[in-house]
C-alpha cells in the first residue's frame, strides 16, 4: 500500500531532520560572538568549573536562551507560513508578505511607546505579546475578510502588501512623535534579534509558542480537507468558520510571539514550507506540518550560526541572513513551478 511506503519515507525524513535540529541546536551553544573553547563550553554545561566566570554567564544567560529562541521562532514562523499558504490556497503567502508581522510590529510599537522598554519582566512580556497578537490578528482578520470575495490569489497578496504598507505608515507616524531613544530601541528591535528573550522570559515565550503549535497540530485534518477548497471541505464535514477562527488564533499567536521578542524576521515563514514540500514531495499535512516545523528550526538555527562573524567581529542582524537562504528558495520554486506538483491544481 502506498500509505506505508509514503510513511516510511517521511519517517526517515523526520528522523534525519530531528537529528539535524539537535546537532544545530548544540552547535549554537558552541558558536557565538565571543569565542569560548569547546572543552570549556562542555564543562560549563556539565556544571563544572571553568576558566572564566564571564563565559559561564555567556553560555547560560545568552547562548542557551538564544538557541532555544531560534529553535522555537523557526518552528513558529514556518508553521505560521504553512497555515497561511493552506488557508489562502496560495503558495506565496507568508506572515511577512501578508503584512501579519507588520500588524504585530504595530502592536509592539504602541506598547513600546506607551509603556517604555519591552524587555522588562513578565508583565512587559505579556503586554508586548498581547499588543503583538492583537495587531497580527487584526491584519489576519482583515485579509480573511477580503479573501471571502477576492478570489484571485495574486490580488489577495497585493491587498496583504497594501495592508502591510498602511500598518507601516502608522508605525512611521508613531516613530515621528517618539523620542530618539524610543526610535532607536524600535529600530534595533526591527532588525531582528534572536537574543531578545532572557532566560527568565523563556518559559513564557515557550508556552505561547507551544500553544500556537498545538492548535496547528489539532488542525491537521481540516487543513488537508481545505486543500480541496472551502466548499469541498464543508461537504466533508469541516466547520469552516471554526477552523478559520482557530487558524487566525494559531497564526496570530505564532507570528506575534516571535515578532514581539525577535522583531519581524523575514523569509522563514514564506520559504520553509516550500523547502519542506520539496524534501517531503507531498502536501499532506500529516507529515508536512512536522517536517515544516523541523525545517523552520533548522533554517533559523543555521541563520543564527551564520550571523556570527568570524574572529570576534560581532554579530550581524538576523534579517541580513534569512534572505540568503529564503530568497533563492522562493526564486527556485517560482522558476520551476510548472515542474513542481504542489503548484498545480
Amino acid at each position, binding site marked *: *500500500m502506498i*500509505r506505508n511506503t509514503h510513511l516510511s519515507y517521511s519517517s526517515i525524513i523526520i528522523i534525519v531532520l530531528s537529528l539535524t535540529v539537535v546537532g544545530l541546536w548544540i552547535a549554537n551553544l558552541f558558536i557565538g560572538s565571543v569565542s569560548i573553547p569547546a572543552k570549556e563550553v562542555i564543562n560549563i554545561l556539565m556544571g563544572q568549573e571553568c576558566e572564566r566566570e564571564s563565559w559561564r554567564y555567556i553560555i547560560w544567560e545568552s547562548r542557551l536562551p538564544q538557541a532555544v529562541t531560534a529553535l522555537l521562532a523557526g518552528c513558529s514562523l514556518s508553521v505560521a507560513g504553512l497555515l497561511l499558504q493552506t488557508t489562502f490556497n496560495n*503558495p506565496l503567502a507568508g506572515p511577512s508578505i501578508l503584512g501579519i508581522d507588520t500588524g504585530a510590529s504595530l502592536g509592539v510599537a504602541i506598547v513600546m511607546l506607551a509603556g517604555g522598554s519591552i524587555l522588562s519582566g513578565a508583565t512587559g512580556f505579556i503586554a508586548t505579546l498581547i499588543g503583538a497578537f492583537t495587531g497580527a490578528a487584526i491584519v489576519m482578520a482583515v485579509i480573511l475578510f477580503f479573501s471571502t470575495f477576492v478570489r484571485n490569489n495574486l490580488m489577495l497578496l497585493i491587498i496583504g502588501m497594501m495592508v502591510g504598507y498602511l500598518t507601516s505608515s502608522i508605525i512611521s507616524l508613531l516613530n515621528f512623535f517618539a523620542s530618539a531613544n524610543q526610535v532607536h530601541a524600535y529600530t534595533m528591535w526591527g532588525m531582528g534579534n534572536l537574543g531578545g528573550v532572557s532566560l527568565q522570559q523563556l518559559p513564557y515565550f515557550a508556552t505561547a509558542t507551544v500553544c500556537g503549535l498545538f492548535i496547528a497540530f489539532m488542525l491537521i*485534518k481540516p487543513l*488537508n480537507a481545505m486543500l*480541496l477548497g472551502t466548499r469541498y471541505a464543508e*461537504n466533508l464535514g469541516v466547520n469552516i468558520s471554526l477552523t478559520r477562527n482557530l487558524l487566525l488564533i494559531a497564526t496570530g499567536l505564532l507570528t506575534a510571539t516571535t515578532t514581539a521578542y525577535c522583531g519581524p524576521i523575514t523569509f522563514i515563514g514564506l520559504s520553509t514550507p516550500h523547502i519542506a514540500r520539496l524534501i517531503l514531495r507531498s*502536501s499532506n499535512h500529516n507529515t508536512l506540518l512536522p517536517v515544516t516545523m523541523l525545517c523552520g528550526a533548522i533554517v533559523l538555527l543555521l541563520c543564527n550560526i551564520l550571523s556570527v562573524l568570524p574572529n570576534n567581529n560581532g554579530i550581524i542582524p538576523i534579517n541580513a541572513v534569512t534572505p540568503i537562504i529564503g530568497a533563492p528558495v522562493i526564486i527556485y520554486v517560482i522558476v520551476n513551478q510548472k515542474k513542481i506538483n504542489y503548484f498545480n*491544481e
Partner: protein
Amino acid sequence: MNSAPVISAQNLDIGYHIARNATKCVHQGLSLSLYAGELTCLLGANGAGKSTLLRTLSGAQPPLSGQVIINGTPLNDINRHHLSQTIGVVLTDKTAIGGLTVAEVVALGRQPHTGFFGKLSTHDLTVTHESMAACGIIEKKDHYMASLSDGERQKVMIAKALAQECPIVLLDEPTAFLDIVSRIEIMSLLHRIATQHQRAILLSTHDIEQALVLSDRLWLLSRQSGLTIGVTEDLILSGHLDHLFPHSNIHFDPLHGCYYPTVQRHHSIHVMCDDETLLHWTINILNRNGYGASIDNTTSKHTATLHVISHDMMTWKQGNQVLQLTSFEELTQQLHQ
C-alpha cells in the same frame, strides 16, 4: 422499482440573499424527487439556475422558502457531520491537491468517517481501495494528482465522493472541458455507480447527447417553464426538450436526440432514399444549404427531386433537366446554382 425518493421538495424557492432583506429569486415553487439507483441529469441553458439548485440541494445554500427533505428528514435538521455522510459532491472549484497522491485524495473522502486526527482504519483503506477500483484509477493510486489528465482527475474526485459512502452524490458539470472519450467514460461510470451501488446520482451537464443515452431520469430546468422531471424517453417523446431552450433558432430532433439550428427553408426538395443513414445525411446537407427536404411527393411545390441510391450515385431532376451526381460535393454545387 422506486420506493421513497431520497431527496424531495415541494414548493421550493431558490435564490440568493443579495443584501440585508433583499433576495434574488432564481426559481419559485419547484417540486422535485430524486431516487436511489438512478442516474439523473439536470439540463438547462447557462444561467438557468442549475448550480443554484445543486447548491440548495446539497445544503451549501439555504432555500428562500420551502424545505428540502432528505430521506424523510428536513435538510435543516441534519447536523453537519451526518450531512457529510449523506450527500457527497463533485464540484468545479479550484483545488490545491497537485502535491497529493490519488490515494490520498480519495482517502479525504473518508474524513466524515474518521476520528479527530483523520487516521485511516483498515476499513477506511479498504473503502478507499474499492472506490479507486470502481472508478478505474487503481493503477494510478500512487501518482500525484498533478500528473493526471483532466479526465483522470475527475474520476479521482468521483472516487472521493464514492469513498464518502453517501447515498446521494451531486455533481456540478463533471464532464465540462473533457474530451469525448472521457465524457463517455465518466457518464458510464456514474451510471454504473448509480445502479450497482444503489446511489442517487444527480449531475448537471451540457452534454445532452450523453445525458439522453445514459440518464434514467431528466430534470429540465429553464427560466420560463421551471423544472420538468420525467423518465428520459417520456420527456423526449412528449416534446418537452423542445421547450428547454426557448429560442426560435434551434429545435430538438427526437429521432436523433440532438438539437439542430432551425432551417430557413427557401426551397423544398423531394428526396427519395431507402437507406436511413443516407437519408439522414442527405437531409443534413440540404438543410445546411437552406433547402427543406420532404420524403413524400403529395405537394407539388418542390424545386427538384433528388433520388439517392448510394453516396456516389444520385439523380437530380429539376423540370426537364436530369443530372447524374457522383458525390455530395457535386450536389452542393447544384444546390448553389
